[in-house]
């Protein structure tokens, strides 16, 4: 299908997309200008405008068939109110309660915006749901994912973007595609690096049988180890900590290239240190194993004498760490500033005591920093073979479009979501994400009622 979903600047059209053109058009979008027009013109203009956003990829006749004049709505009920009266008070007297101005009635009455639900049936479509779950940067892209076979519905591959989801359906997109769709694109150097990496991989495959390559590699490794032997474990740990801290720093102004250099340096250092350990499978092991190996090689140990309460808190946090990947974003420090300074003081004190030994003590804080940096290295590595910029970061202008409607329950880790129910309107809010005003949507709804 040819993509006609352009984002012209002359006649601004809002699309289901995260592009910066779309953001610009969205913020300068005004009403359809329905005043001074005939009723027919109003309806025509409104539905033309609304259809550029809602189901632009769906043929008009298709949508006209899907349209439903019945709008789903709910009213949140208060159990305590229901328990208090059986409703007879409201119908007493002449039908509207004995005292219409009593203080018992709710003071603020919020209207249900039914007309904002005019395009609700389209939200059932698989491609739209994928876009709403933030798995694709536009509905067109979501559609492509479906057609290219990257989407499953209830565990079965679904190739039809027009599949209407039913309540309880679980759909899942290939995480690699999601990372590609939502991640920043590669720049020129990264694309080049990717080509080089691919070429090298192909070459290695060719040479797989020959022993020369393997021998050379081994030699390199031993050289590295020799080089490492001279390093003092304490010095190494110190430099490693420095690097870890710079990686996790919240400096926003740092250039991505610079940032990447730092990250690569850290990665190299970790690998060098780990290569000295006895077990050969450390590099592929779990995070915990790597971490313990690293500390044992560097002869680091936890500083003792911390309050047990704080330690518990830390332990809980670090257990969550494994689940939560740390990205480039700054680490949220839940700790108060006092505790931090105290920890540093303690670290300094213990350093002085243990001058003669070859054991370096680490505070919990530092352990945490090291662990987090390692976690980041593992979850968000530099890999030029990926189709997106690595380490992964969200694409520009994504946050302005990031919202997840309540009729979906999304698990971002596995890029899966459940379509819980059909979108509904409730007093004061409607669940269909539409950028248009109620006036526009009302006129568009009226257009699709059969008799115009």
């Amino acid at each position, binding site marked *: 299908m040819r993509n006609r979903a352009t984002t012209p*600047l002359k006649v601004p059209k809002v699309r289901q997309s995260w592009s910066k053109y779309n*953001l610009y058009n969205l913020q300068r979008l*005004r009403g359809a200008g329905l005043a001074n027009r005939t009723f027919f013109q109003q309806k025509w203009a409104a539905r033309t405008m609304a259809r550029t956003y809602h189901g632009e990829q769906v043929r008009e006749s298709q949508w006209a068939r899907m349209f439903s004049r019945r709008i789903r709505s709910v009213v949140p009920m208060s159990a305590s109110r229901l*328990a208090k009266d*059986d*409703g007879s008070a409201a119908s007493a007297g002449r039908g509207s309660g004995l005292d219409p101005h009593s203080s018992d009635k709710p003071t603020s009455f919020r209207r249900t915006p039914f007309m904002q639900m005019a395009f609700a049936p389209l939200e059932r479509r698989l491609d739209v749901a994928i876009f709403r779950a933030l798995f694709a940067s536009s509905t067109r892209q979501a559609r492509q994912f479906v057609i290219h076979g990257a989407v499953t519905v209830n565990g079965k591959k679904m190739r039809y973007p027009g599949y209407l989801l039913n309540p309880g359906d679980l759909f899942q997109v290939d995480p690699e595609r999601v*990372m590609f769709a939502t991640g920043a694109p590669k720049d020129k150097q990264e694309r080049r690096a990717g080509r080089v990496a691919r070429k090298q991989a192909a070459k290695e495959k060719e040479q797989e049988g020959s022993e020369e390559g393997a021998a050379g590699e081994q030699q390199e490794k031993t050289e590295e180890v020799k080089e490492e032997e001279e390093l003092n474990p304490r010095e190494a740990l110190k430099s490693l900590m420095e690097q870890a801290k710079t990686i996790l720093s919240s400096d926003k102004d740092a250039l991505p290239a610079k940032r990447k250099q730092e990250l690569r340096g850290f990665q190299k250092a970790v690998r060098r240190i780990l290569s000295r350990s006895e077990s050969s499978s450390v590099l592929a092991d779990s995070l915990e194993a790597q971490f313990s190996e690293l500390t044992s090689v560097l002869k680091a140990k936890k500083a003792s004498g911390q309050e047990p309460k704080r330690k518990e808190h830390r332990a809980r946090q670090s257990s969550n760490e494994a689940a939560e990947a740390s990205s480039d974003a700054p680490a949220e420090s839940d700790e108060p500033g006092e505790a931090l300074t105290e920890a540093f003081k303690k670290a300094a004190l213990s350093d002085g005591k243990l001058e003669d030994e070859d054991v370096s003590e680490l505070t919990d804080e530092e352990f945490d920093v090291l662990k987090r940096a390692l976690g980041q290295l593992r979850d968000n590595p530099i890999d030029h073979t990926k189709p997106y910029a690595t380490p992964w970061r969200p694409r520009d202008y994504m946050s302005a479009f990031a919202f997840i409607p309540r009729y979906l329950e999304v698990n971002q880790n596995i890029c899966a979501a459940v379509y819980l129910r059909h979108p509904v309107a*409730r007093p004061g809010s409607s669940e269909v994400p539409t950028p248009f005003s109620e006036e526009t949507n009302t006129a568009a709804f009226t257009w699709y009622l059969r008799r115009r």
Partner: protein
Amino acid sequence: MPPRIQTKLVTNALLHPHSTPGALLTPTCTPCQRSTRSFTSTPASQTRLREKMFEWLNGDGQEFKSHTPGSPNYVTKLTERRQGGQGDGRVHRPFPLNPYFTSESILSEELRNEIHRLVMVEKRSVREVSVKMGVDMRRIGAVVRLVELEKRWKAEKKPLALPYARAIHEMVPVTPLEKNPGEAQPTHESINDLPTHKLTEAQIFYPVSESRQFNRVDAGRVFSGAMALPHSEAEYINKNPTEAILRTTEKPSRIERVGKGDDEHQVLQPADARIPHPQLVAHYRDRNELPNEKAEWGKRYQERLDRDQRVRAERRQKRIRSEEERTLKVRPENSKFEFRFEDVTFSKETAGADGRGTKAPGMRYG
């Protein structure tokens, strides 16, 4: 083809012999405007509209380029600021023209895992967990499914989109898990949503004597076109509202039906029975009746939950049993298929007068 003239400086110096190279780079000549043709001195053609767009993107739009972790970043910030507000993005509206759509919070990772633990490890009922966490029952089910799937993926060592997940949780408002045992868990969404029934969309003028207590049960009967309840029945419902609700929620098949043929439908039940958590209404009734016996409320609440679970399990068992009795299963030797036959009765009741009723056997196959 590469340009013939080597450097820009040389070209420009030839054209303007008196100007210094520094002066040539005028501030209006932004990188995006600069022409690739080194001979021309006119700026590259960029339409006024594009110019305006980039002006906005580099000005007001700058803050939308990247997000600040923990705070949503929507364009309504600008409108708010224009109207003299704070513009700190506390109102989570992504669309400037649509005040009715707000970006609502999602479950935090910890809350999700806690829900999964309560349901799968502690074996609490979905109904109970829903009330405890302030999360819709359907969402509880979905969360459990998704976390189970995630665990399976982790066990299979499939790659997860962890940095992506982290970024999303930074951009979208999140409902956190209350870790302090003394504090109540913040409500995620309203759990007692009453769906608007089709029958209630009509406006009905129904005269009632002023002396009569016209309550929700009566209103439901009027909406569905059923006759008024006999006095004895109405009195029973008035006296034991909790029991009356239990009668309909425990045996939905016993609900009275009215109408004929295709128009036959159940009598509309009052809101107390149709909300997802009718046991909460009973709980509040207890609180109103026994204001000082806190322990008793909890006991009764737990009893009701247990009873509900038991009744539902029984109903499910019964359904499965009757289904098995009805079907004849045949599995031919060396076949991977199992054939299931069900007896059908082709009568006016099942197939309709013209044999084309929606419940007729074979209806779904044409």
